[in-house]
């Protein structure tokens, strides 16, 4: 896998994992009926992962806490070399399944552009809008703190 394709894949996997399920479901529905069939290499399963962090991004690694995670691996029936991985936060098995299937389709040469335009781009646009709406809401209540120099 080249560096560029790895970057692309990281990007779409992040979009799929952070998407809201009803929207993902809706956009996935737009892909039509002729989707390739798939089977599970690893059916959706719920588990715990330890989230680790570094204070300030540079310090010693420490365990931040555990979070629930659902994972799934799907394989396209006609192209068994293509496997899609879905790792999503929370307990939604359907979300993990759709993320895995979309990841597999995005690696399929006949489907990649369609899934990009029908699923990834709308989801990304929505995420962007939601981020902007939230930040403008927060911006309206911003409070600035000033510290004064103590007079000597």
């Amino acid at each position: 896998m080249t560096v560029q394709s790895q970057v692309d894949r990281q990007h779409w996997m992040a979009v799929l994992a952070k998407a809201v399920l009803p929207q993902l479901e809706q956009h996935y529905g737009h892909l039509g009926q002729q989707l390739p069939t798939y089977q599970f290499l690893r059916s959706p399963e719920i588990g715990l992962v330890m989230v680790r962090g570094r204070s300030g991004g540079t310090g010693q690694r420490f365990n931040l806490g555990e979070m629930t995670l659902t994972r799934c691996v799907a394989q396209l029936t006609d192209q068994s070399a293509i496997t899609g991985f879905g790792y999503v936060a929370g307990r939604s098995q359907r979300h993990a399944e759709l993320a895995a299937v979309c990841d597999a389709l995005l690696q399929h040469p006949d489907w990649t552009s369609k899934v990009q335009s029908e699923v990834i781009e709308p989801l990304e646009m929505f995420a962007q809008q939601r981020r902007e709406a939230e930040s403008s809401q927060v911006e309206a209540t911003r409070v600035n703190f000033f510290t004064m120099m103590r007079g000597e």
Partner: protein
Amino acid sequence: MIQEPGFTNPVQAAQQTFRALLVALANPGKIETLKVDIHPPEGLSRSCGAACLTLLDLETRLWLQPSINQNIQDWLVFHAGCRLVSQPALADFAVILDSQELPSLDTFCWGTPEDPETSTTVLIQLERLTGGTVKQLRGPGILETRSLSVPMPNQFWADWQLNHQSYPLGVDSYCFAENHLVGLPRSVEVH
């Protein structure tokens, strides 16, 4: 990466397999039949594949016979998440697909007098479980004697004498073929 799926129904299949493995070890030399839906990669029998997925997890160390192909190795690591070790003596489980090339049993871990349960469990896959030299088994779990004719090399039975005599130390083993399995715990005496 071409992979075969694991258990179709992981919870029930793993429980049924574990039960069969327990029953097999409690009744040494009695052939058990496993009815679980699994399609392991080429070269691995259904019962051996099911036992591997049931027994192995993130914390177990696995030694594979060096002749085992990459496809089987990838399948085991993907579905079980086990760690591979290069020395049989470090392994919790060992998988043998070619019984003729089975290393001597004393190369595996036999446990320590304080922790005899830390020994290696040896999983041996065979073509079939009958047709070899008939052996008489005695020991816990067997009322009088039980006859068994698994086609194992003579060296294995020679090693087994020492393995049995070193009780409580020693290895436990299973033999697999197609969807059948038979357990040979270290407590069993073979004539």
